[in-house]
């Protein structure tokens, strides 16, 4: 394929990465952050799969069979444990504002600057070759594709140095998206999104090639395996051939379990860039699934390559590209090339960012801060300094990797160098795992363990590779250092029968762990180490308190703190930050001496920028610190925790109390209202009863006292007495009635009724009354109204009541009452309209209350018991209907009741 096309594709791809990262940062500025998505988190973890996975796995499968899978099965097995181990690390880093693995270890062991330096050095030494092989993968994949074309001359300087230009482009990307913000606790959202996108691309590319090889070139998995099984050499790859294979398998699994957490790039995406601990839930199964998918076609591709290129000198590391090339699949070749390119670039980008933070925070800054002279030089521009150090180190790392690639990496396969890097970071395991679960682990132990471990790592794994490249005499590997047999790097202390990696891992980790345990148990830890140990190990107990309590004692001055912060954040921002914190915690900023909480907070802020060790150096440079014992630390944390929980339960209790009080108040109000209603009712009833009773009594007395009264007069009086008694008994009946309705004792006597009949019967009852007052009654029936189920007598009672009211309030002679029925949508509306005095709007709702008119005697003369409407309303409600009133003063009233017939 034309090499120009390849270059254009590579450049376009890098432009695409820039685009994705830029877009993601813009989205996050708009508040639509993409990294809050757990899928992006899980995909970004796949930065684990580098060019080694993409090209190297196939090469490894050819020589060692299934063994290459160990580095993916290890992380798979480790994933469920992330809930315990990594979640704890994430929480610690968030609370302590830790941004790199060097910072983590240094912070745990008393914020030791020495440990930070050591970890950084091990990381650089371990990871540089690893970055170099990514460059190598890019370059060799480029050459393989380009060489297939006739136009390629092979000696053009530009093409030869392609990795160099790629390295430059990657440095630019990393600088732009990796060092935009000075506070490295702020996340690199653009970078993470770009990495997630790269993960998708490399997976799609590998799967497409895999499907092509397995199903188009060959006839499925079975076909490839069957054909391969005919070749004795390939059959060997189907099984583990001796016990040593099982042991390598185990050690490689163990090694990758550590690597998947402690490789700087993994620590960066899994811990530092983690937005939400709950994202681990999805990652725990999604990441193993990703690794499963990207490995499904590795063995078929390896076997296919061996079958297709038997006896040809094709490097197995390049089968993924060579097979599509052989079948002249241009697009597929390009896709595969881009897939491998993305695998390599994603690794380089994240790894360099992580390393650059370590270099600036743990290597350079402590030196600058310790030297008075240097500090004077950079006074006021420290934040620029930090950023510039990071930028410079990014360029340096990539250039060094390029140099390493040019000088040494050419001699080794992708996997072997990757495994050496894994073994380097595995040295952090005792210090980190011990550090988060074992309070006794101390600085001395971590320091010696790490030092001895990495020395053995260097001796058993790195030195031989330097010998291979010709930097040291071959005799060291063959006869041991100074000719001492037991010092042979590949069989140290006479240990034979293990592969180099397992061998180096075993010895380095054994001594590392041994030293860590021995010195931790025999040496005393300083107070600050103790304090940090407590915070790290018991982080879940205290994470809420560490923010608010101060574990620092001494004297510092507010102006010094202000000056220190403004050095990094600028005057305005640092002032704002301090003011906010002071407000929240009620600290007086105007007092000269700084509150301990303010000092702790400042240290944490600085730690986010320059790392814990450097932050500590700066704080101690402006303050006079006093020792604080672990017991005190624990009691400070405990007391603020107790205070917090006591506060919480108090708040809860008082809330409950408040709720109960308001419920009680409501109940009381209802009670009072009903009580008042009852009183009113009784008063009204008594009053209503007294009126007829008084007249009965008065009239009876007159008749009694005047035996010789005129017979006519006597009859008149007695007639009134009878009428009043009727009224009295009617009233009492109504009261009893109402009581029945209210208590729910009244039962309806349901039968099929016709509304027109009910109205006719009611009108007949009152016909005489209306006629006496010369009131006209008009009836407009709706003939479509169906018969329905109801209590006929009760409905007649309602209509009679409404009608008699209408008659009562109509003027004689001119009065006119219209009764109408309407059947609409399953409901029968019956209205009784008069042209009488009407009812004021404010009484329209009250009118259905008991004895309403009794309260309103001044407005209207009582002409009835005042219970009729209340009873009518109850009857209609018992029929599941409604009754209401429309009225205007002077124009008349219209009562309507509606009953549903469905």
């Amino acid at each position: 394929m034309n090499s120009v096309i390849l270059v254009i594709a590579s450049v376009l791809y890098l432009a695409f990465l820039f685009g994705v990262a830029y877009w993601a940062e813009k989205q996050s500025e708009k508040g639509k952050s993409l990294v809050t998505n757990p899928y992006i988190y899980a995909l970004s973890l796949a930065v684990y799969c580098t060019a080694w996975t993409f090209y190297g796995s196939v090469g490894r499968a050819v020589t060692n069979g299934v063994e290459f899978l160990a580095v993916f099965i290890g992380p798979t097995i480790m994933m469920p444990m992330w809930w315990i181990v990594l979640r704890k690390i994430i929480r610690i880093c968030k609370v302590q504002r830790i941004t790199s693995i060097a910072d983590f270890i240094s912070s745990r062991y008393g914020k030791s600057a020495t440990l930070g330096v050591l970890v950084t050095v091990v990381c650089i030494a371990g990871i540089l070759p690893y970055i170099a092989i990514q460059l190598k993968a890019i370059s060799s994949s480029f050459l393989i594709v380009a060489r297939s074309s006739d136009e390629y001359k092979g000696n053009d300087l530009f093409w030869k140095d392609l990795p160099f230009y790629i390295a430059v482009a990657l440095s630019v990307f990393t600088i732009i998206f990796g060092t935009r913000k000075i506070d490295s606790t702020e996340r690199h959202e653009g970078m993470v999104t770009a990495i997630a996108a790269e993960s998708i691309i490399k997976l799609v590319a590998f799967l497409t090639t895999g499907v092509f090889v397995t199903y188009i070139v060959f006839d499925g998995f079975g076909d490839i395996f069957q054909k391969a099984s005919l070749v004795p050499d390939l059959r060997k790859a189907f099984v583990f051939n001796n016990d040593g294979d099982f042991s390598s398998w185990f050690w490689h699994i163990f090694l990758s379990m550590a690597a998947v957490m402690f490789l700087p790039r993994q620590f960066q995406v899994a811990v530092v860039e983690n937005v939400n601990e709950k994202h681990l839930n999805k990652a725990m199964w999604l990441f193993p699934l990703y690794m499963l998918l990207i490995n499904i076609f590795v063995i078929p591709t390896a076997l296919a390559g061996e079958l297709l290129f038997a006896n040809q000198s094709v490097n197995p590391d390049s089968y993924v590209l060579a097979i599509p090339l052989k079948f002249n699949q241009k697009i597929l070749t390009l896709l595969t090339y881009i897939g491998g390119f993305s695998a390599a670039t994603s690794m380089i980008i994240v790894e360099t960012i992580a390393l650059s933070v370590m270099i600036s925070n743990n290597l350079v800054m402590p030196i600058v801060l310790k030297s008075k002279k240097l500090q004077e030089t950079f006074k006021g521009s420290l934040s620029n300094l930090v950023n510039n150090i990071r930028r410079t180190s990014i360029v340096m790392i990539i250039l060094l990797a390029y140099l390493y690639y040019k000088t040494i990496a050419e001699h080794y396969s992708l996997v072997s160098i990757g495994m050496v890097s894994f073994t380097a970071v595995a040295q952090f395991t005792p210090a980190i795992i011990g550090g988060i679960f074992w309070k006794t682990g101390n600085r001395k132990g971590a320091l010696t363990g790490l030092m001895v471990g990495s020395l053995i790592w260097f001796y058993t794994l790195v030195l031989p590779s330097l010998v291979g490249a010709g930097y040291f005499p071959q005799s060291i590997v063959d006869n041991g250092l100074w000719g001492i047999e037991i010092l042979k790097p590949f069989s140290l202390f006479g240990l034979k029968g293990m592969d180099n990696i397992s061998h180096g891992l075993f010895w380095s980790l054994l001594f590392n762990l041994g030293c860590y345990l021995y010195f931790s148990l025999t040496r005393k830890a300083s107070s600050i180490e103790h304090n940090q140990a407590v915070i790290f190990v018991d982080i879940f107990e205290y994470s809420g308190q560490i923010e608010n309590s101060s574990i620092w004692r001494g004297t510092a001055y507010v102006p010094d703190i202000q000056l220190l912060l403004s050095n990094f954040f600028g005057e305005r921002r640092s002032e704002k930050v301090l003011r906010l914190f002071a407000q929240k915690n009620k600290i007086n900023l105007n007092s000269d001496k700084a509150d301990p909480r303010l000092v702790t907070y400042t240290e944490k802020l600085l730690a986010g920028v320059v790392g814990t060790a450097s932050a500590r150096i700066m704080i101690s440079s402006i303050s006079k610190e006093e020792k604080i014992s672990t017991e005190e630390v624990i009691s400070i944390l405990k007391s603020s925790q107790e205070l917090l929980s006591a506060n919480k339960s108090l708040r809860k209790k008082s809330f409950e109390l408040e709720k109960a009080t308001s419920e009680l108040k409501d109940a009381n109000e209802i009670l009072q209202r009903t009580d008042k209603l009852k009183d009113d009712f009784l008063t009204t009833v008594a009053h209503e009863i007294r009126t007829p009773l008084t007249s009965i009594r008065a009239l009876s007395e007159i008749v009694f006292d005047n035996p010789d009264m005129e017979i006519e007069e006597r009859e008149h009086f007695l007639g009134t007495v009878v009428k009043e008694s009727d009224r009295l008994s009617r009233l009492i009946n109504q009261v009893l009635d109402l009581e029945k309705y209210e208590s729910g004792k009244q039962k309806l006597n349901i039968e099929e009724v016709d509304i027109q009949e009910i109205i006719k019967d009611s009108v007949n009852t009152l016909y005489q009354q209306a006629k006496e007052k010369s009131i006209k009654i008009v009836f407009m029936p709706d003939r479509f109204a169906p018969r329905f189920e109801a209590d006929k007598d009760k409905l007649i009672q309602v209509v009679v009541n409404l009608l008699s009211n209408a008659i009562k309030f109509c003027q004689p002679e001119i009065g006119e009452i219209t009764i109408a029925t309407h059947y609409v949508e399953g409901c029968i509306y019956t209205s009784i309209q008069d042209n009488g005095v009407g009812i004021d709007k404010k009484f329209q709702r009250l009118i259905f209350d008991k004895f309403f008119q009794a309260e309103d005697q001044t407005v209207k003369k009582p002409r009835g018991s005042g219970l009729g409407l209340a009873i009518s309303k109850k009857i209609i409600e018992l029929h599941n209907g409604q009754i209401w009133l429309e009225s205007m003063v002077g124009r008349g009233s219209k009562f309507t009741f509606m009953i549903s017939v469905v």
Partner: protein
Amino acid sequence: MKAQKLTLISVLFLILFNFPMLSIFNNGDSINGIPTLYMYVFFVWILFIVLVFNIIRKESKENPRDE
């Protein structure tokens, strides 16, 4: 509870993925042409994913605040 279940899964699969479990299938036989060792490794891998997926789903149903 969740942490315990997940730890158990890790330990269980560390055993399933290692000697001597592997040696049972390390016999050079094949199923439909595919070597039993490969079949076993990938089968256990899929089983792992399904199991973890289920545990997470169940736990997040029981404690929705964890999700």
